[in-house]
């Protein structure tokens, strides 16, 4: 793993990488495709932005191969805002990740929303100084990503659908299995590791601490303040909103409302206030009608 030590300081440590994820808790990370959207996101109180070429619903609509964004676009966004800027690399595409690291993005999302570059291998994330977030649909996937060096896990959901049902399934699956492992006896942990296809050490760690070793956020299908509240109440520690903001009728208003709903996720009096008069949310899609599901990408 890539720790950079000088006589006085050490960079790129696990504490430093997971530390930034700690700082993003309770916040909203918004997908943006240009500097103007990034400003709207920052103005609304986003705790970070995710720079990408097209929001997931457009990727879904247009088809074709979805890749890392143009460095010029990412630099434009970095110049426009003061909050952390994340960017997506294709699954297994370590060269894209190297380019993103060299741009000094604050987090790299090895994302199923882009077209995978490798059908067997994810990026060895320990080899990078910049931290990584990865999607997961279940606990086994989450732990495999953590063993590869991911410092933040997000549910995959089904990006670009505006339909929260998949994210809820993934959160419940991950948190449900964590709860069961906490109750398991030491002999059962070996079986859990086998079933999950995950390293035993991480399963034992979950048994002892009752939580993932890295922060767990929710992504994929959040389209309203109520969606943000739902996933936060289910146990997500922060939310990613992709198409839900900039595919809604009034992005600035929607962005502010989702930020307020995420902070006050358990307070219906705030939720009703921020949900009022937002205009149209993004048009949603039924999962059964999808030609391509992104959540299946990842191994």
């Amino acid at each position, binding site marked *: 793993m890539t720790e950079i030590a000088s006589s006085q300081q050490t960079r790129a440590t696990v504490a430093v990488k997971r530390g930034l994820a700690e700082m993003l808790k309770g916040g909203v990370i918004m997908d943006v495709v240009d500097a103007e959207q990034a400003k709207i996101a920052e103005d609304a109180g986003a*705790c970070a932005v995710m720079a990408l070429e097209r929001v997931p619903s457009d990727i879904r609509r247009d088809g074709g191969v979805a890749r890392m964004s143009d460095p010029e676009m990412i630099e434009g966004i970095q110049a426009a805002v003061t909050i952390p800027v994340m960017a997506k690399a294709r699954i297994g595409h370590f060269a894209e990740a190297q380019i993103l690291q060299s741009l000094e993005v604050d987090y790299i999302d090895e994302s199923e929303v882009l077209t995978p570059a490798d059908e067997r291998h994810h990026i060895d994330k320990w080899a990078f100084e910049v931290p990584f977030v990865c999607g997961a649909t279940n606990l086994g996937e989450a732990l495999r990503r953590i063993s590869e060096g991911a410092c933040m896990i997000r549910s995959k959901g089904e990006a670009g659908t505006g339909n929260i049902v998949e994210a809820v399934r993934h959160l419940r699956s991950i948190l449900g299995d964590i709860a069961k492992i906490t109750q398991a006896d030491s002999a059962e942990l070996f079986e859990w590791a086998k079933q999950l296809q995950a390293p035993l050490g991480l399963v034992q760690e979950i048994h002892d601490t009752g939580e993932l070793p890295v922060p767990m956020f929710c992504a994929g299908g959040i389209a309203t303040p109520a969606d943000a509240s739902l996933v936060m109440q289910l146990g997500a520690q922060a939310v990613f909103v992709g198409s839900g903001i900039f595919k809604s009728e009034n992005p600035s208003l929607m962005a502010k409302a989702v930020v307020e709903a995420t902070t006050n996720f358990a307070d219906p009096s705030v939720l009703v206030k921020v949900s009022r008069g937002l205009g149209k949310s993004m048009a949603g899609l039924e999962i059964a009608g999808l030609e391509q599901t992104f959540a299946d990408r990842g191994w």
Partner: protein
Amino acid sequence: MLALQGAFHAHQRMLAELGCATSLIRQPADLSGIDALILPGGESTTMSRMLVVSELYEPIGELIRNGLPTFGTCAGAILMASKILDGRADQHGFGVLDLEVRRNGYGRQIASMECEITLAASAFGSPLEAELPGSSTGVGGSGAGEVSRHGAPFHAVFIRAPRFERVGPTVEILAEFEDFPVLVRSGAKMAASFHPELATDTRVHQLFLAMIAKN
């Protein structure tokens, strides 16, 4: 504990270890009956906007100006500073500490780091151990005397940290790293550019509890 966004749970965990009860503040009503306030790390622009939206900006500012012991870490320190460099034009701070901070003054995430800092002996002007419940420093080991324990280096984690570029004459510097202050105190107010809540060493939080007790 201000809980609009950020790493407030990490502070809560550490204070619970020290036997201190905490509550989360998201609405003005949550402010009643508090003895002290922690402004946690997170994104200062997010917190700043949510302070205004949640109508907490005025009442919290008044409480701090009236002497409520307050500890800000990283983004929390930015909120306390009298001057914010490289911030947003509309960023609201409380301006309660004579301190000039530069947001992300050490650079982006790739420059985030861990290092050893030394806490000034003056920080522990009072017999700390006697005043505090459940004190464990996490360093020093058995047999370490009080003085050497206080003098042991503190392992500090800096995340996209603000840099304290100027401190006022009434502000006491409790720790420095590479020529810049990283932990400062003035009266009942303390600010850190690093994250003591991410450490296992509880001394900085103990120091804040001692300040509350003295208050």
